[in-house]
């Protein structure tokens, strides 16, 4: 049933030879890797106003900051895009900030970059989905859905997860349409709005009927302006996605990725700056009932079909922006897992040639975050930008070292570009830390620290294991062994038959089945069953009045040791398997077998073999 459902939703397995066919052209890549960055235009302007227009400030002062802050963010975007173009050509195999830091700055900076990026990808999903839901519930006829934000958000996460489990190319196809519709409708909103304002008859101003702050007057200090800038800087989140995903591009990968990055930067910068200029003239106000973009859409496009296209395209691209994280989180976690800092399961390709475990982990973590913050975008934003700007800074600093070491091509120009990028993003990181720490940025700092600690602990575990498992030629001297095989029996079932067949194939010097009886009833039942099935293997029964399975088996094996002069004793345990993964049912059934196996693993000259068998977990027994 599980397999049927998997095939139905995720699709049939793909052959490994199809891996190369999963590479995507630039036009699809722009949608897959840029929807995160471009979609932030839907909420970045609003987030600036939420900080600069409320409290001691006023709407008028807040609106006045939009153009200079929009310019500042656009300038920062230009610097970061120029820096990441260098990274794309220097690291065509992808990995972005983590790989650049690992190779140029050392272990700890790379772990900081990796942890920051992983947290950022989870936040990207949560923020994008919550903002997408906000766009839907801003439409007047859908406002009654506002109370169901979390449920709608989780439903959308499930849909994106399924699309991504099917494979990147197919999900790219799904996402290309809404991304391009959003770019076109936003270009129309900004272009037509500015045309009407400056060339045409002018635009009507938005009436701030439900605005809860001051309309004019108030005070706007430097700290609040910097706070507004740090809010606007969330527009840059997702810019690094292309540099992480270079291997997913068609050949020549680096050239195509660099071109796509410039397309993305141009679209994002133009839309964001244009929108801020337009907002400065239209005078929208920040509100939890209707987004700033929705207010501007109604003012410029009216409340007809074009407004609905804007709102649904916004909801769609914001929902699909999460796909950028779905493209990058699994890929980055697989790289970190290959380096031994994350469980190896994250490096496994699933049967649809995607890193299924990374996709599933991202889905669960982002859904939990969305639920914890009630699906409110504004509450998640302070957590958001810390990780992004940490990884930007480390990546650019790493590139400076890279240029100095390799001295390839125009390396001096590269140093200047990346040094400017590193300093700029570090300054922004400082601003975010200064202005948003108590608002929630501290949560990201703690989580990143915990993840780094986990990375180190996992790496230490694997290293220790490598040492424990190392082998020498003297360990593997072949010789013929005298062997006694013992099959453990709880009751007679298909698994026991299979285990007995296997034990016979071993051609042991002595073979017996062992039953540990806790009471007379159990003893009588197994004797009856053994006789009924007519097994040609002697059944030995030992009593254990105190239900100590392990102790009873160990004592029996000690007796066998004394009885026969064996080199080894092979203990065969039929083991119930309920599914591909360790399921709760399986844990219930195998607890005693597991404890026994562990004890026997430490017994000298004893080989323990588990012979797995499958049964339907529904019936009782096992």
């Amino acid at each position, binding site marked *: 049933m599980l397999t049927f459902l998997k095939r139905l939703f995720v699709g049939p*397995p*793909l*052959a*490994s030879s199809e891996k190369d066919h999963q590479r995507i052209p630039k036009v699809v890549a722009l949608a897959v890797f840029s929807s995160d960055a471009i979609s932030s235009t839907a909420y970045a302007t609003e987030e600036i106003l939420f900080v600069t227009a409320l409290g001691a400030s006023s709407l008028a002062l807040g609106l006045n900051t939009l153009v200079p802050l929009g310019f500042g963010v656009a300038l920062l975007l230009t610097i970061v895009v120029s820096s990441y173009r260098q990274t794309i050509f220097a690291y065509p195999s992808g990995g972005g900030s983590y790989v650049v830091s690992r190779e140029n700055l050392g272990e700890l900076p790379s772990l900081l970059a990796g942890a920051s990026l992983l947290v950022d990808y989870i936040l990207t999903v949560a923020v994008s989905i919550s903002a997408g839901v906000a766009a839907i519930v801003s439409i007047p006829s859908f406002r009654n859905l506002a109370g169901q934000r979390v449920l709608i958000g989780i439903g959308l996460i499930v849909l994106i997860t399924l699309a991504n489990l099917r494979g990147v190319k197919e999900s790219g196809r799904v996402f290309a349409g809404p991304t391009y519709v959003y770019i076109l409708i936003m270009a129309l909103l900004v272009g037509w709005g500015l045309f009407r304002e400056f060339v045409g008859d002018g635009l009507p101003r938005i009436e701030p009927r439900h605005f809860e702050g001051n309309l004019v007057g108030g005070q706007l200090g430097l700290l609040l302006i910097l706070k507004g800038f740090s809010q606007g800087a969330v527009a840059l989140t997702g810019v690094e996605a292309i540099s992480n995903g270079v291997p997913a591009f068609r050949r020549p990968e680096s050239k195509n990725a660099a071109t796509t990055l410039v397309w993305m930067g141009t679209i994002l910068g133009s839309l964001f700056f244009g929108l801020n200029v337009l907002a400065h003239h239209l005078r929208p106000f920040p509100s939890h009932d209707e987004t700033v973009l929705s207010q501007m859409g109604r003012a410029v496009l009216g409340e007809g079909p074009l407004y609905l296209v804007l709102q649904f395209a916004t909801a769609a691209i914001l929902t699909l922006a999460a796909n950028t994280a779905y493209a990058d989180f699994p890929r980055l976690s697989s790289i970190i897992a290959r380096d031994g800092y994350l*469980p*190896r*399961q994250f490096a*496994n*390709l*699933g*049967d*649809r*040639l995607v890193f299924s475990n990374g996709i599933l982990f991202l889905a669960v973590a982002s859904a939990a975050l969305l639920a914890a913050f009630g699906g409110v975008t504004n509450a998640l934003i302070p957590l958001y930008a810390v990780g992004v700007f940490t990884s930007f800074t480390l990546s650019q600093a790493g590139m400076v070292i890279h240029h100095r070491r390799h001295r390839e091509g125009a390396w001096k120009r590269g140093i200047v570009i990346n040094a400017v990028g590193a300093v700029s993003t570090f300054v922004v990181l400082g601003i975010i830390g200064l202005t948003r720490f108590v608002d929630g940025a501290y949560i990201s700092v703690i989580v990143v620290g915990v993840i780094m600690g986990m990375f180190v602990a*996992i790496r230490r*575990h*694997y290293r*220790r*294991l*490598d040492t*424990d*498992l*190392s*082998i020498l*030629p003297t*360990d*593997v001297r*072949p010789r*013929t*062994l005298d*062997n006694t095989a013992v099959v453990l029996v709880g009751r007679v079932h298909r698994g026991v038959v*299979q285990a007995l*067949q*296997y034990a016979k*194939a*071993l*051609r*042991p010097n002595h073979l017996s089945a062992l039953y540990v009886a806790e009471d007379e009833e159990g003893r009588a039942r197994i004797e009856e069953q053994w006789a009924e099935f007519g097994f040609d293997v002697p059944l030995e029964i030992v009593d254990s009045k105190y239900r100590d399975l392990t102790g009873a088996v160990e004592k029996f094996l000690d007796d066998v040791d004394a009885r026969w002069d064996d080199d*080894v004793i*092979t203990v065969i345990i039929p*083991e119930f*398997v309920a*599914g*591909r*993964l*360790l399921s709760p049912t399986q844990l219930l059934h195998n607890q005693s077998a*597991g404890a026994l*196996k*562990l004890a026997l*693993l*430490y017994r000298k000259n004893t*080989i*323990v*073999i*588990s*012979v*797995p*068998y*499958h049964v339907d977990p529904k019936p009782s027994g096992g």
Partner: protein
Amino acid sequence: MVRPPLAMVLVAAADRRLLPALALTPQLAGYERRAVHIAIDPAESTRLGRDWMSLALDGLPLHIEEPTAPTIPLIVRDLVRRELAERPAVTVIVPEMDLGRWWQPLLHRGMGRAVAWELDGIEGATTVVLPMRVDLVRALRR
């Protein structure tokens, strides 16, 4: 011509996990014996080939197989089906670490169960999970 049953030891690396398999396979009288490595990572395969020679494991020839499917259990299923076309039985022996800790499935792949799942229902195929104790348990207790 029908070939003898095959005992196929899945190998990821030449390490201590192999020891129980090396002790067990000679007991399987009448079986053809073979170690099988799936070449997912070329560097890992090259290292294994070199280690195999240096350990002089002549009694258990190593076969390096190219992946025919996206996951190791699916590749093993393909291999077993191929072998069963000319043999009565194939036993797949999967050496596994046993740390005896609840978090073990989180950090280790547990390939034995996944292979057993894929081979379930294939007539003539048996999976044997051969656990290898790791002294890490003791070290962790200290």
